[in-house]
């Protein structure tokens, strides 16, 4: 592992120089934006309403048309809503839950809540009612601003457990006409000042509250998705949000002509940091899709210049491109294959301004006209100046595919506790296996146990009502433990993440066990959606595999394999054969790694159901909850180790409406003994 602090420091100094120069350049162009010294997001909104006035601030596709609101409109709405919130008795320090998919009015509600000194707390909108009890009661929320009837129904269902919640405000009145409840009101009514008596009293109150706010005021409370047990409430201050946003703006030279599409859950820190932290500060246009299903079409129409997607997003995009190409005529397919090989060879070099021969440049130019351009347009990425992926490792082929098309896709490493930004890859210094250098103001160090620590202006205030965990994570000097094991790559000076520190273990014979690393290798195959590796303290590693229904379903269709359900397809012998082949390849590549060669998979099974956030097996951000999975499927894991060839199991499943059911299946366990030994010998 890495052991050379001096080298790393010089690298850091070098990259810092770069930021300073970038910062200075930006200061000339947008200096006023970064040096305004505004302390709160509402204040920044006010500035935007003067500076950018009629420029579109938010767009949302509604009724088939892109509706726009200027910065002035937004400011007015937020102001009115703030008065309404005060009139409903919201006090400073109260929590207001925001529940719904990405909609402009909900973002404005966040700002309005901050404006009156309350703390907005966005929650995952697809959580079932029972899951909402914990965060709402934990922060003793006084009010919830929700998107629609679905969310209202959920809150009514659990109202006994959240008796502190006084008001529910809804955005979409559909189906709520006949709800006779005193504490239910529409966002429209709350935000119209003509319905208020005594408006001047509320206005002076609002001014008084605004004057009290500063950089240390709590800005937002975000509940983590809870990869390792119960979710924690992360409190971020204005300073965290504003400083980390500034760092992001400087790092990628973002200005007010950028546009951003918001489609990831509002409760996730990334969405908040990008739309509010970056968006408000830079004055870019924030766009919301019509519905989750229309994202791809909406993206194509907007052509966002700043784009963030988890690796899964890019994977599915690439899968759908490949499927369409497979179905295309032979001429188109040949054209695609030829130009993609050209792109593979030259694309990244051209993107990074490296020297490329004139012939290849002409070929690439032709490719741009025939293939890359139309393809980027199809994917809605033709205007993308900066694209980020994070959250998980991305497959090198996927990453390179997008970069070779000329899309500036990069990786970043972030955390809720850091208000996202810890490290980013600078333009032209992009390596698929690292996550880049620290952004402005972030200091990094590696602890003796190999855990990554950082200290930054973005690092969180505390875990809400949880001082012991706060102490464990953040030490007195402000260093925050990420819980990730990693090291600084000596060659590039970039940070490289191996795995969650607590997941890294040892096999019985003492060699390193890094499950995520192996799982990621497996997940790079489009057919494999999810993989869970076990082996800590055991003699060898075993795996549970989830197939990807889209990719495998398509493959089945082509090979005349009929199936009635996910379960049947998952248990098909040919599917097992295919998965076994993938695992063999992974084993082979692992056998070349001197640290991880014992992590090869000896036995595996294909799970009869998809791991589902409703069952708690993965988080809403789709990360596997390892402990829960190993408890729930302990019978399967036992069978994986005791040599049995097949196991019968019953599993509880939760339907979307919260009801529970049971499914049962006989699952085949396959052994890869033969190749495993061969590989071992080699």
């Amino acid at each position: 592992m890495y052991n050379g602090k001096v080298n790393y420091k010089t690298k850091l100094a070098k990259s810092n120089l770069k930021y300073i120069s970038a910062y200075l350049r930006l200061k000339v162009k947008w200096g006023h934006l970064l040096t305004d010294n505004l302390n709160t997001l509402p204040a920044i909104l006010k500035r935007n309403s003067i500076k950018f006035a009629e420029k579109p601030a938010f767009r949302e596709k509604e009724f088939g048309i892109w509706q726009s609101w200027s910065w002035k409109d937004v400011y007015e709405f937020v102001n009115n809503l703030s008065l309404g919130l005060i009139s409903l008795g919201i006090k400073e320090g109260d929590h207001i839950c925001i529940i719904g998919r990405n909609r402009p009015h909900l973002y404005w509600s966040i700002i309005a809540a901050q404006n009156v000194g309350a703390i907005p707390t966005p929650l995952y909108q697809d959580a079932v009612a029972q899951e909402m009890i914990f965060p709402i009661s934990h922060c003793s929320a006084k009010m919830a601003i929700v998107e629609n009837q679905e969310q209202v129904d959920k809150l009514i269902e659990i109202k006994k457990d959240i008796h502190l919640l006084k008001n529910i405000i809804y955005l979409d009145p559909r189906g709520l006409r006949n709800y006779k409840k005193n504490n239910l009101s529409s966002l429209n009514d709350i935000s119209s000042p003509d319905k208020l008596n005594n408006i001047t009293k509320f206005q002076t109150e609002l001014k008084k509250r605004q004057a009290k706010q500063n950089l240390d005021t709590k800005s937002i409370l975000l509940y983590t998705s809870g990869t390792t047990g119960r979710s924690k409430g992360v409190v971020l201050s204005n300073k965290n949000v504003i400083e980390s946003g500034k760092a992001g703006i400087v790092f990628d030279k973002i200005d007010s002509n950028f546009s951003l599409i918001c489609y990831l859950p509002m409760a996730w820190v990334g969405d908040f940091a990008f739309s509010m932290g970056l968006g408000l500060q830079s004055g870019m246009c924030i766009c919301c899709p019509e519905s989750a299903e229309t994202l791809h079409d909406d993206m194509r129409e907007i052509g966002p210049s700043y784009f963030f997607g988890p690796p899964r997003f890019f994977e599915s995009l690439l899968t759908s491109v490949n499927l369409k190409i497979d179905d295309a005529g032979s001429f188109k397919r040949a054209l695609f294959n030829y130009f993609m090989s050209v792109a593979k060879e030259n694309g990244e070099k051209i993107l990074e301004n490296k020297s490329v021969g004139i012939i290849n440049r002409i070929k690439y130019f032709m490719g741009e006209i025939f293939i890359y351009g139309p393809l980027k347009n199809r994917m809605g990425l033709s205007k993308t100046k900066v694209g980020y992926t994070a959250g998980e490792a991305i497959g090198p082929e996927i990453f390179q595919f997008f970069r070779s098309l000329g899309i500036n896709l990069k990786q970043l490493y972030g955390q809720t506790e850091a208000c996202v930004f810890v490290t980013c890859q600078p333009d032209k210094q992009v390596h698929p296996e690292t996550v880049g250098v620290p952004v402005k103001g972030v200091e990094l160090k590696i602890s003796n146990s190999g855990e990554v620590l950082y200290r930054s202006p973005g690092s969180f205030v505390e875990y809400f009502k949880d001082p012991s965990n706060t102490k464990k994570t953040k030490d007195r000097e402000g260093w925050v433990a990420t819980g990730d094991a990693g090291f600084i790559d000596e060659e590039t000076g970039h940070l490289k993440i191996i795995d969650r520190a607590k997941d890294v273990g040892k096999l019985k014979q003492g060699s390193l066990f890094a499950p995520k690393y192996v799982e990621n290798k497996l997940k790079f195959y489009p057919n494999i959606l999810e993989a869970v590796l076990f082996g800590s303290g055991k003699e060898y590693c075993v795996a549970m595999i989830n197939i990807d229904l889209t990719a495998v379903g398509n493959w089945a269709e082509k090979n005349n394999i009929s199936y009635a359900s996910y379960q049947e397809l998952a248990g098909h012998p040919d599917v097992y054969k295919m998965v076994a082949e993938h695992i063999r390849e992974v084993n082979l590549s692992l056998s070349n790694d001197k640290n991880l060669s014992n992590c090869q998979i000896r036995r595996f099974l294909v799970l009869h159901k998809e791991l589902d956030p409703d069952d708690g097996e993965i988080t809403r951000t789709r990360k596997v909850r390892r402990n829960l999975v190993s408890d729930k499927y302990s019978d399967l894991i036992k069978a994986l180790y005791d040599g049995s060839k097949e196991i019968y199991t019953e599993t509880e499943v939760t339907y979307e409406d919260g009801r529970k059911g049971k499914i049962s299946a006989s699952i085949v366990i396959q052994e890869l003994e033969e190749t495993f030994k061969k590989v071992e010998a080699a």
Partner: protein
Amino acid sequence: MNKENIKMMDIKNIVLRFGGVVAIQNISFDIFKGEIRAIIGPNGAGKSSMLNVINGFYHPQEGEVWFRGKKRGSMKPYQIAHQGIARTFQNIALFKGMTALDNIMTGRFTHMKKGIFSQMIWEGGASREEYENREVVEKVIDFLEIQHIRKTPVGALPYGLQKRVELGRALAAEPELLLLDEPMAGMNVEEKEDMSRYILDVNSEFETTVALIEHDMGVVMDISDRVVVMDYGKKIGDGTPDEVRNNQAVIDAYLGVSEH
């Protein structure tokens, strides 16, 4: 819900025969404004025939249909559609090759006043009319949450979504009375729940009166205000779900009667 018990439709002594077969024997019932009225019964009870009588597709040999306080004479189905009655079908009747959007647009035909010529040259108010109609259709699409299939040919959609598009087409007509023929047939539990939600929302949001045929007793009992029960062309029960549930004749028709 405030149902003022105003009769929207009154069906009096209907008899419908096909040759020697008597499909409906002397049935009378009424539909109040703003309610959800279910018609249930075993297979072949004459439920769909009843719906066809209401929307004027079948002409009964005897009996009268009163709509909004007036006796209805012999009318063509499209004339009845103009009166504000829209329906969906048991076996989806959409234009398979057309997109969901275009299919729903066809539901607006009763509101299109311009001639084919002005529509062709996009002049004389035809464009404005099209915009207005599109606006209504978009509201329906938003209401039914089918934005993602707006441009998808209906033939390529799964069954549950086709049913939703068909409901959308009926809604686009902005009907006063909506007739649904087995809206939930062949759906799984989650799709049924969604569909029930939409029907309830249509009823409360647009104050549309709904008459529906459905086999799923759970759904019928949950969402309807009053239920008519038919068996072999006869009415054997009529009342609130609770009354119907305890009606001996209904229980016998559904569960069968043992020979004494």
